[in-house]
């Protein structure tokens, strides 16, 4: 897994009712709520924010429009640990669900799909054993078993990172040297 620490900033709208001694706390909280576990197309998935710089903030009161008057906008700088998967990157993950079409592997916050075509080839001889309990992918000689909770090392083939975290997905393969189940 490859994480970055990135200096980012975010515009937060704070309602006047929070103007008070605990404003900084509110801002921090708000920032965490809004940013953590979100995703940006550019930076990837934001896992954790820290070093929130609330000491030198200056809010600007927004012109009254949609919002009740007095809402202020604070541009809050912060550090974030971000995770952005790249094509060709090798990741470790845990199989979340397996089916005849392939596997869904959870690599940290990212769900990677390994399609049948990228999972089984003549070399590893994997095939879907739906009648097995639990159903799993198994090689013909039964030496490789990939089922739920199996740890896999995979290579990312392609990613789709969008601002909505639920839309993020990636496609991976284990058909390469040193990829596949790991202990």
């Amino acid at each position, binding site marked *: 897994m490859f994480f970055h620490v990135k200096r980012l900033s975010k515009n937060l709208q704070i309602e006047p009712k929070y*103007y008070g001694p605990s404003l900084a706390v509110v801002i921090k909280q708000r920032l965490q709520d809004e940013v953590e576990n979100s995703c940006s197309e550019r930076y990837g998935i934001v896992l954790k924010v820290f070093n929130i710089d609330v000491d030198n903030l200056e809010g600007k009161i927004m012109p009254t429009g949609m919002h009740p008057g007095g809402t202020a906008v604070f541009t809050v700088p912060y550090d974030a640990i971000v995770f952005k998967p790249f*094509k060709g990157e090798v990741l470790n993950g845990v199989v979340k669900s397996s089916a005849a*079409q392939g596997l869904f592997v959870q690599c940290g916050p990212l769900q990677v799909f390994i399609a049948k075509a990228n999972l089984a080839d003549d070399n590893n001889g994997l095939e879907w054993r739906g009648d097995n309990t639990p159903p799993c992918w198994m090689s013909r000689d039964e030496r490789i078993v990939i089922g739920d909770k199996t740890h896999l090392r995979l290579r*990312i083939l392609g990613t789709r990172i969008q601002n909505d975290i639920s839309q993020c*997905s990636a*496609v991976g393969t284990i058909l390469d040297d040193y990829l596949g189940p790991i202990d």
Partner: protein
Amino acid sequence: MVESDSDDDRRASKDRKNSDAEEDDDEDEEVEADEESEEEDEREESRGKKKGKRSRSYYVDDAADDDDDEEEEEDDRKKRKKSKKSRRDEDSDGEEELSDNEAEKMAAQMRNSYRRHDFLTADLTQEDLDARYRGAMHDDEALDGITDENVKNARLPDATKDPKVWCIKVANGTEKTLVIQLMNKFVTLAKEGKPIHITCAYWNEQSLGYIYVEAYKEAFVKEALSGLRGVYATKMKLVPVKEMTDTVVIIKKSLSAQPGGWARVRRGKYKGDIVQVLAVEHNRNEVEVKLVPRVDTNDYSAFDDSEAKKRRSKFIPPRRLFNPDNYGESDLDKWGIENHRDQSSGDNVYTVDGDFTFTGGGFVKKWFAVKSLTLGSDIQPELDDLKIFEQDAKTEDGLPNRSMTHLTSIHKRKVILNKGDVVRVKEGELRDLLGDVDSIDGKRVIIRPRHEAIKQKLEFNMEELEKYFEAGDHVKVVNGRRAGVTGTVVRVEGETIYILTDVNREEILVFSSDLQDTNEVSSGLDVVGAFRLYDLVLLESASSSMTMPSVGVVVQLEKDTLQVLDNYGKIRAVRPADVQPHKKSATAVALDGEQQTIAQGDVVRVVGDGPMKGKTGTVRHIFRAFLFLYSPARMENAGMFVMRSRQCVLMGQSKHKENDPTNTLGGAASLIPGRMGDAGRGGFPGGMGGAGAMQPGGFRAAGRGRGASWEGKRVRIIRGFDKGKVGTVKEETDAICRVELDATHKKVAVKKTDVVDLVDEKRVIPSHMAIPQTPSSDHFQAGSQTPAWTPSTPAHDGSQTPNPYAEPGTPSTPRNFFDPNTPGTPMHDSTSWDAGTPATPGAYASPYEHPAATPATPTAYGGYSSNYVQTPGALNPTTPGEGASPFTPSTPGGYASYGYGQGNWQTGQTPFDQGTPQTPATPGGDFPVRAAPQVSNWCLKRIEVRIVSGEFIDRTGVVVEVKGPDCKVEMQGGQSTMVPAEDLEAVVPQKNSSVIILQGELKGSTGKLIGIDGRDGIVKMDLNSDIKIIDMPLLAVHVPEA
């Protein structure tokens, strides 16, 4: 080279001549000319056109090689001319007299036909033909050169001089034969010396069932046709001159069938199937095609022949490759496959359904009439189909390569590029260069290369480019059977793309040309008939034999079938016509393993044993005790699976709402007893009531001790939908009561804070007096004196905090909830206590709308109700659930300060402290509770009111007089009536309307409502133009005296 002046050419030149001749040639000359042979014709023409020389010269030049022939022919012709003349003299006896002119003209025509006759009989050489053809070309060119404005008209025959064309109906399909017969007849009779006097006979493929005969007289045509079979001589029509050319125009019908091409069968068992063209027989208009057989392998031997035949013809077997060699004779026989010797090749072949002949690769081939096929370039096989056919190509000739190239050549697909598409260059120097389509101009595509070294835009042919996709791209299929499906590219093999579909989680193969980048998610075929994906459908309704109707959820939509997951977890394929939509699911509820109510949209976890144990899913549909659950993680059945409701446990809170006003009360009506029980009863967790009735209008009750029962009390509703109505309390909980309205005899559930005691209206019934711990209900009443602090604030309702840690779910507790013997809960003794619903206790929790969002911050709900009532902006009495919005976890801090704690209660502190705003902006403080009319007559003169009960219900009018408790209302239309004030409701003022303030120190002042902000009305006072913010319920529309 005489032939170069074939009839057509001649006619054309004649036409030309005629058009000119009409103007400047006189008849005599014409006659003269006609007397000679065509040389004269040409000379004639030269007079009009000065073209004779050229025409003639080319004729001569061209004909130079064939001088001898020419001479012979010339002689021939002269001879014949003579004989003909004499013949005609004889013939003409019985016929009408022909003028000399005509006679000569006819003679000329006849000569032509003889020439044709010669032509037919002459020993034709290739050169002859070439020359003839070339000549025709020349002539055409010559024609083209004419600067006549209307060339077409120039081609038209002159009605007065040229032969006419008759169109004769003949038996279908005999056209060709008849024309040949006519020709033979003509030749034979001519040889016998009694020719028939037609100049031409022809047919046109487009006019089926007609032949055309050209002659000077109708009688000649009739004569010629006499004795021929299949001619309906009575149906003979003269073709108008203008349409004549049309009869000889052959619309080039390009038979798009080409060997290797594709078609679809139009009818029959194979209707819609894709077939590959093997051979084309243009003359017969037939196409030999190869198709995947549909062999019916059902055994009909149990039926007699006719029945078996009937059944066989009804049944459409699935498509699949079938190789008769793999089966025994007896089986084949049973399936109607015959083995016989092919007449032409002498091989043994198997046939089915008559003449579907099996080929080696498991296909069948058959000659189809073109009509029964749909041909065209838009018919392209799907990749799956292609694979099947391709596979055959491999097995047949063992040359997979050939089949591959064959394949790609066949599927020269139209690539439709759009701006923004990513393309790859397929061929040429820049092969494999990627680029984005910048613009498209017809066939030329300008791309912006994705290459560091190439900066300028490049232009390509459409054919040189292909769409480019990478694994991980999210794409949408835009063509073919799968059109509309979206998915993620998992693998790319040349032009073949493997896609994992978003919805069904299946892998499909698609050509890159059929794909497009997309952001949307869709299952493609969304609607088949009236059905959509995930619809609940009724498969079989309950019948006498089956008490349980069978339902299912649509998990896949195909062209004309639905894949349905039924309530037993089986997949069934059904036709849309065989099922009905099932609509009840939205309101259905079920009980989970812990007797909690589950409704659509709830999340449940499977606890029952089985393969699904531990899985979670969202309830999509409920059918009786079956839950149709959706889990996006599941790949089978589009994520749907079926569980029995008892095998599941509700996770979090139910979203269940009944279609009952009670529900609109949202949180206030829901009681989560756990915490309250702890507080109130000192560790008697289950001891409080909490029940819900499942039936609409079910009554929730809480078995809290309370001071006095409300039942039988006469109350007036002061808020909400039923505002202003009077009724009797029939049932109650600590937060709500059910009021039977005097006006409509309906029972409605109302928050207790929304009703006032009719007897003593000043006394807003404090609902919290029901709580035993309340130190003194009077205390609250004292508070109620100040309108701004109306104690109706059910602040204690905070104690109903939806505590997710409460134990409503344990199966043992429900019993306690309903234990009527629980001491200290007098309400339990009441008859109205809906103890009869122990089976559905879970309902008490269900109406709670927002708990899931804030399960971890129960204290944030402290003072819940009060805030909810008072929150400006969020307030909407009829939809209290919205009031919860300020409590979203994003703003937890704001509430922490006045979060309600148990201690407050115990110490008898007044609960209003909770509402005391710690920051001025906090919602909840500065707000008078909705105007509870505190005087017997709240009405003022000249306000607009609506009558809410009595004879004139729902009429609006203006109060013209206030008399004690009654008002005189003048309704629209001038009628006036006396109505008790309680039966009136002030019409809610709109922005910019004139308003009057009903209560408070400004009572009676008028102003203009210049804005509405949630519950606040912004009023510009008439008196001093002050801007005041007034609670909307305190405002009424002011109708000044006219």
